[in-house]
């Protein structure tokens, strides 16, 4: 098993770039992976595309010499990881539904927050970097996009932007999950909250799940190992290999 201080990294890490800040921080100066591939976080809105890209990146990572395992910094992600198959080497994946649970350290904590703060929208440095979280950058991005798509119809563009703002009408709190003590990201989240007249709440992230993922502390309760040839499946709400 790997661990801090271990010298010969032997796995390839395939990660959603929503985790870029946390993984770089937790990996330290001599990170435990042999190769690292980030995939774009926007893929989460299109589970089928996400599945295809993860599968083809696994094939590429496997071809890297010296790799005997692939570690996925992904959750089930709207079923996007369902059906992903291990090829030559086993896969290791957290038994998480999404990145929010991983940043908070456990599924139970995430469930409790969703219950206690039903109008809460989660932010993290990665989500903020993606520029699609509710707030001024999202507005600007969508305005450009729709103006380009409907150059002759400014009224429709305004309607579209209003419709987008409307989708957040049930929300009232920005929940910022902090793992990296990143003042810049936190400030941006506060700006988003202000622009929407939401309240801002700082949540202390728990790096344990991600840290144990990359440092090889793979207990069966929190991590699923998928042997070569098997694929990621669901049994009720639990991730299994089949």
């Amino acid at each position, binding site marked *: 098993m790997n661990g801090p201080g271990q010298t010969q990294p032997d796995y390839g890490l395939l990660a959603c770039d929503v985790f870029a800040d946390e993984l770089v921080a937790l990996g330290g100066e001599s990170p435990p992976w042999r190769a690292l591939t980030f995939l774009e976080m926007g893929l989460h809105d299109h589970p089928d595309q996400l599945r295809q890209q993860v599968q083809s990146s696994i094939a590429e990572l496997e071809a890297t010499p010296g790799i005997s395992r692939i570690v996925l910094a992904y959750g089930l992600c*709207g079923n996007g990881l369902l059906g992903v198959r291990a090829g030559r080497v086993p896969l290791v994946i957290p038994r998480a*539904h999404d990145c929010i649970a991983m940043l908070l350290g456990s599924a139970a904590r995430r*469930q409790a927050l969703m219950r206690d703060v*039903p*109008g809460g929208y989660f932010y993290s440095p990665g989500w903020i970097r993606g520029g699609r979280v509710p707030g001024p950058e999202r507005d600007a991005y*969508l305005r450009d*996009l729709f103006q380009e798509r409907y150059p002759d119809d400014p009224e*429709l563009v305004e309607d579209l932007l209003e419709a987008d703002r409307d*989708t957040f009408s*049930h929300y009232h709190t920005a929940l910022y999950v902090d793992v990296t003590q990143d003042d810049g990201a936190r400030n941006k989240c506060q700006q988003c909250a202000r622009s929407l007249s939401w309240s801002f709440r700082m949540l202390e992230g728990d790096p344990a799940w991600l840290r144990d993922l990359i440092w090889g502390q793979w207990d069966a309760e929190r991590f699923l190992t998928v042997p070569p040839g098997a694929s990621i499946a669901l049994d009720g709400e639990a991730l299994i290999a089949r």
Partner: protein
Amino acid sequence: MRTVKAPNDMSEILNTLTESIKAGKRKDAKAATEQALSENIDPQQILAALTMGMDDVGRRFKANEIFVPEVLVAARSMKSSMELLEPVLAESGYTPDHTVIIGTVEGDLHDIGKNLVAMMLKGANFSVVDLGTNVGAQAFVEAAQTHKASLIGLSALLTTTMTAMREAVALFREQGLAAKVMIGGAPITEQFAQDIGADGYATDAASSVDLARSLVA
């Protein structure tokens, strides 16, 4: 007085209506609906034109050709047309036989898909009671009893709230509700629907209508 429209004009108006729904142009959709009504076009045909536009929007969203706001402006256009159409439908003796209770399950605030389904069900002559989002299982039970519903529709978009769906269906069974239960939302599969003992599941708004009809038949 009643004038009979030449079929060509009629299909042109209905075509305009379908196109304005697709483009999310609320004013145009409203104008086309008003024109269709004043030309005495069969309200059922007007409804079909609206539905056809919305089906196309749903398809393009699934194919990643358009974004959520584009779906929403189309839905709003359809809604404003429906407001004009509903009284006419009611007048023509078209009154709902069945009540559906619909809502998004506890912990989940996604409602775009649920709203679309609700609207299409209304269009298909169901009386729809929409409980909104983050709805607890007990609230569904109470509403089903109060409104003597024949059908309950549950929506969930998060794999983490699919559990709430399972619990809700279990409660309905425990309470011996007569209403049939249909479920939907992007992560829902046929397998899951069977697992939790729902009566049916549908992947989009158009097939939700077929499903609802078959469940109350």
